[in-house]
């Protein structure tokens, strides 16, 4: 079991409020990603759940039990750190088994569990090596091994993939997701990368300025962003925002259209005319950055190749069903 509930959790360092009241319900076995720009409080929130920081207010419930006064080790959670935080003078075996040793388990049981964890992570050949003799991806797996061997109620990941190169990151992303599904353990994962959030999460928590902006499944966030911030943060390239007359025509202060929902037409086909400033040809996709006069710079995405270049005049036609409308305070308007 690993059901985690946050009730009005607050954290301030002196006069600075980092977390301004967070309410959250994390179901057992789900993979939840905290995402947001740097300084939004996502790591602080994770550390509060871990117990590495004390809350300034509110309750944290694990399986219905309030743990705000419980020391980290007694909460039954394990954490994977950004720097991996492996113990440099211990072998892989020692690193993975340290928590069990501290818990006072007999030696043969520790060995059995460590070897089982190592087998799951393909670390068996490296058990007697020191962390410095391992590659980045292997170190990452040792850190994960240290987390799973204690059979915790939940895993906490603090930007664990940010030190890996792009190719390895994609591979580890899949491995972590698969491992979590296989073990069925609740996981909370902190990242600033919305692609990681979209691909790994069952549910995403978008944080901004110490507040939870929206909590929902990846597609919910993509299709029905609650406000301008979520709309702009989720999705790549960013959503186009248009204000002024075009927005008020639709009864909104701002309207937003994702690049993939702008149809690229010849000039004069209606929609929004403009001149291509930059065209990016990726083969699978074509991204156009269009100077659209009073609307500013718009981004459009076309699946497949499109033989247009800088300087060409085009017209961008938004898909009327996919236009997001927002009021003056940035909240989404429905219906």
């Amino acid at each position, binding site marked *: 079991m690993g059901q985690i509930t946050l009730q009005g959790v607050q954290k301030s360092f002196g006069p600075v409020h980092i977390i301004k009241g967070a309410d959250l319900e994390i179901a057992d076995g789900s993979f939840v990603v905290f995402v947001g720009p740097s300084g939004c409080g996502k790591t602080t929130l994770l550390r509060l759940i871990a117990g590495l920081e004390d809350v300034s207010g509110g309750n944290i419930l694990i399986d219905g039990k309030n743990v705000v006064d419980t020391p980290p080790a007694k909460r039954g959670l394990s954490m994977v750190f950004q*720097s991996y935080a492996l*113990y440099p003078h211990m072998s892989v075996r020692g690193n993975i088994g340290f928590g069990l040793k501290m818990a006072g388990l007999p030696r043969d049981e520790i060995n059995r569990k460590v070897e089982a964890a190592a087998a799951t992570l393909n670390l068996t050949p490296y058990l007697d090596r020191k962390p410095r003799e391992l590659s980045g991806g292997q170190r990452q797996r040792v850190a994960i091994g240290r987390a799973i061997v204690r059979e915790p109620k939940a895993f906490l990941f603090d930007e664990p993939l940010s030190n890996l190169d792009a190719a390895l990151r994609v591979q580890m992303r899949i491995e972590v997701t698969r491992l979590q599904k296989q073990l069925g353990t609740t996981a909370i994962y902190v990242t600033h990368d919305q692609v990681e959030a979209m691909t790994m999460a069952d549910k995403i928590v978008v944080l901004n300025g110490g507040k939870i902006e929206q909590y929902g499944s990846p597609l919910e966030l993509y299709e029905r962003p609650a406000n301008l911030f979520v709309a702009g943060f989720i999705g790549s390239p960013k959503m186009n925002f248009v204000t002024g007359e075009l927005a008020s025509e639709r009864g909104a202060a701002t309207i937003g259209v994702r690049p993939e929902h702008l149809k690229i037409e010849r000039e004069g086909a209606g929609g929004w005319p403009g001149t291509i400033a930059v065209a990016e040809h990726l083969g699978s996709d074509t991204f156009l950055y269009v100077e659209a006069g009073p609307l500013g710079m718009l981004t459009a995405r076309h699946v497949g190749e499109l033989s247009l270049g800088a300087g060409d005049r085009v017209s961008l036609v938004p898909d009327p069903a996919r236009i997001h409308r927002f009021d003056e305070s940035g909240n989404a308007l429905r219906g």
Partner: protein
Amino acid sequence: MATRQTQFLARSLLAPAVVLLFVWMIVPLALTLYFSTLHYSLLDPGSESFVGLENFEYFLTDPAFLASLRNTLVLVGSVLLLTILLGIPLALLLDQPVVGRNFVRLMVIAPFFVMPTVSALVWKNLLMHPVSGLFAWLARLVGLTPIDWFNDVPLLSVILIVAWQWLPFATLILLTALQSLDEEQKEAAEMDGASAVSTFIYITLPHLARPITVVILIETIFLLTVFAEIFVTTGGGPGLQTTNIAFLIYSQALIQFDVGSASAGGLVAVVIANIVAFFLVRIVGRNLEA
């Protein structure tokens, strides 16, 4: 950019310094070697004559030699032990966030900047003096007979003074190392359920292995040649109780005016230092490998 031109330039620019250093070292060494084979007494100038290895024989068979060798090793070993055993807790304390930490650190480091002669005089006359010293006053306060430090426990007194001087060095090196300990590692240990004591044993102490090695190696180099503290306080006595190799060589040259024997002693000291260094590097040096 190790092109041929820059290599040549680098070497020609380095050459003067290297030559100067080489001459600086080789001239005294050569002269010492030369003097060690002479009968050379300052009381009888002009009578220098070649005597072969007689000076070495005389120095090594002198009962004072073995006594001073023993004193040297006891002094080095005790001071190393004291500075490290006290330096670790002190460094741990100074690593804690307390009010006025910078001032406390400055105070702890201060003894290192006091000249050996000055600190020896302070200890001799203000602290350890059997009549007017602070320790004697404290002893009398609780009704004890004051200890006559330099007569009753002369070697221990010297050890205490030297340890006091080197404690800041050990503390400083260990403190710097503590500050470089990754915060996330400590947190990982906390998540793993390690108590403060376990964290110290399994995380902090292994992290300190290398700086402790550095402290041992550097302190040993200087502790083998402790001189001023002995000269100022006990003058090597009573008897030979506080005479170390360095002080013995001094007394050969400038108390007995026997330059030949002192030179031989100096060369013996070089050999001893090398033997100690050899064993030290074998015992603790592997910690220095990355």
